[in-house]
């Protein structure tokens, strides 16, 4: 059992989607996260174990490598693709409540900013960490963050900005969110941000990389 879960983790870490996928070259022709996950389910391994010891573990490894500059954006993208493909087999168990997500996170790029790759990467790592992610897109107004939070009832909200000009819009968004949901943890991230700036706008956490954001979320879940 351990062997197949380790194989799944490796496939996710290295972005081996399925047998047909051409990358990584040294795994060409071998089964990928897709086939192995199905095989694991059929062999009777509990889906939560496949999720935690296989898929989430694989994403944790790539997230850690990304944090350490040992992996790059394209590596995370194919890992996420491998995870998402495998998740198709796991999703029915969420619906039947046999497994539960760790919680729900709202994520969006702030008003005035249309950049979404950074936000998408963070969303993938958080999703890969076992959380449900509601992506509200780019150029998101304070009103849209608050309204979506009302309907989706997330456990935390993540804001992303790539420009020094749009970073300034975060302050208003944090104020609006905190005005309606005073205890809602708000995480901020993006190239021009700093810890000092995050503190100055009353955000709860500044994350320089996606893995740190996930660690923070896992921590708030434990302390809740």
């Amino acid at each position, binding site marked *: 059992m351990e062997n197949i879960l380790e194989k799944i983790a490796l496939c996710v870490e290295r972005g081996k989607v399925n047998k047909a996928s051409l990358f990584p*070259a040294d795994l060409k022709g071998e089964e990928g996260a897709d086939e192995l996950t199905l095989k694991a389910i059929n062999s009777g391994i509990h889906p939560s174990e496949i999720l935690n010891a296989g898929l989430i573990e694989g994403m944790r490894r790539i997230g850690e490598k990304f944090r350490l500059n040992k992996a790059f954006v394209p590596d995370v*993208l*194919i890992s996420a693709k491998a995870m998402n493909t495998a998740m198709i087999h796991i999703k029915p168990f969420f619906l039947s409540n046999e497994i539960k997500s760790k919680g729900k996170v709202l994520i969006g790029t702030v008003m005035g900013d*249309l950049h979404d790759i950074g936000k998408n990467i963070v969303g993938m790592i958080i999703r890969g960490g076992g959380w449900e992610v509601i992506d509200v897109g780019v150029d998101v107004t304070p009103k849209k963050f608050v309204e979506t939070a009302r309907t989706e009832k997330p456990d935390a909200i993540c804001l992303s900005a790539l420009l020094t000009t*749009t970073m300034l819009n975060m302050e208003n968004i944090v104020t609006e969110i905190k005005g309606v949901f005073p205890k809602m943890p708000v995480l901020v991230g993006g190239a021009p941000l700093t810890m000092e700036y995050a503190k100055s706008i009353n955000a709860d956490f500044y994350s320089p990389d996606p893995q740190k954001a996930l660690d923070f979320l896992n921590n708030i879940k434990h302390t809740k």
Partner: protein
Amino acid sequence: MDMIDPTFTEPFEYSINQEDIKLPIKLIKEWFRSEVYNNDEFENQISNAISKIRFLKNIRCGFRIFQSNEVEIKKERIRISDSEFNTGNIITKRFRKSDMMCIFVATAGPELEKESKELMSKGEMLEGYLLDVIGSELAEEAGNILEGKLNGIVSHYGFQTTNRYSPGYCNWDVSEQQKLFRLLPNGFCGVNLTESSLMIPIKSISGFIGIGEKAEREDYQCNICDVEYCFKRNKNE
């Protein structure tokens, strides 16, 4: 001599011919540093993605030259016409030997970024990212072509040019794009600026190029700048 033919001080706009674009696979591969991508299949994928460029209709570049009587290089600021730019110490230094200034825009157009977003939203993350990267490099290549055209004009008068420098880099605040675009016609090269100083299409570049008898080009040096998060630094290191 510190003036060029006044004809060239009008805004110039070019549609870029496909055959002028040089986007080698090697350049794109630099963005995919992992061993995973070091194989023929991925090179074929890059090659196929690059071939989409031949269908693009909006790759453009343009510039406007300001004569020496409209340009003043100060300690940390540059005045062009009636606009004063807070370019900061790092960038202003690079223009010290320039007498005239070229304000430029270059763009890859909107098509690649649209297709990239569509692919990503369908879960084709790698394919979408690849097009995004090609869009970024294509905008830079449009800038290279623009520099070639500018040099062709100014060298005729015995002038040389500096490197190109853009708001958002080397501590020149991106909000200064507003002043820069006010010196160009509306919708110049099909590029518009949002309130937050974001260019639309996103895969566009803008900035200054200095012109003068003693203007100098330098190797791109990340050590002159302290902006840690810059993508050029990440790419060059």
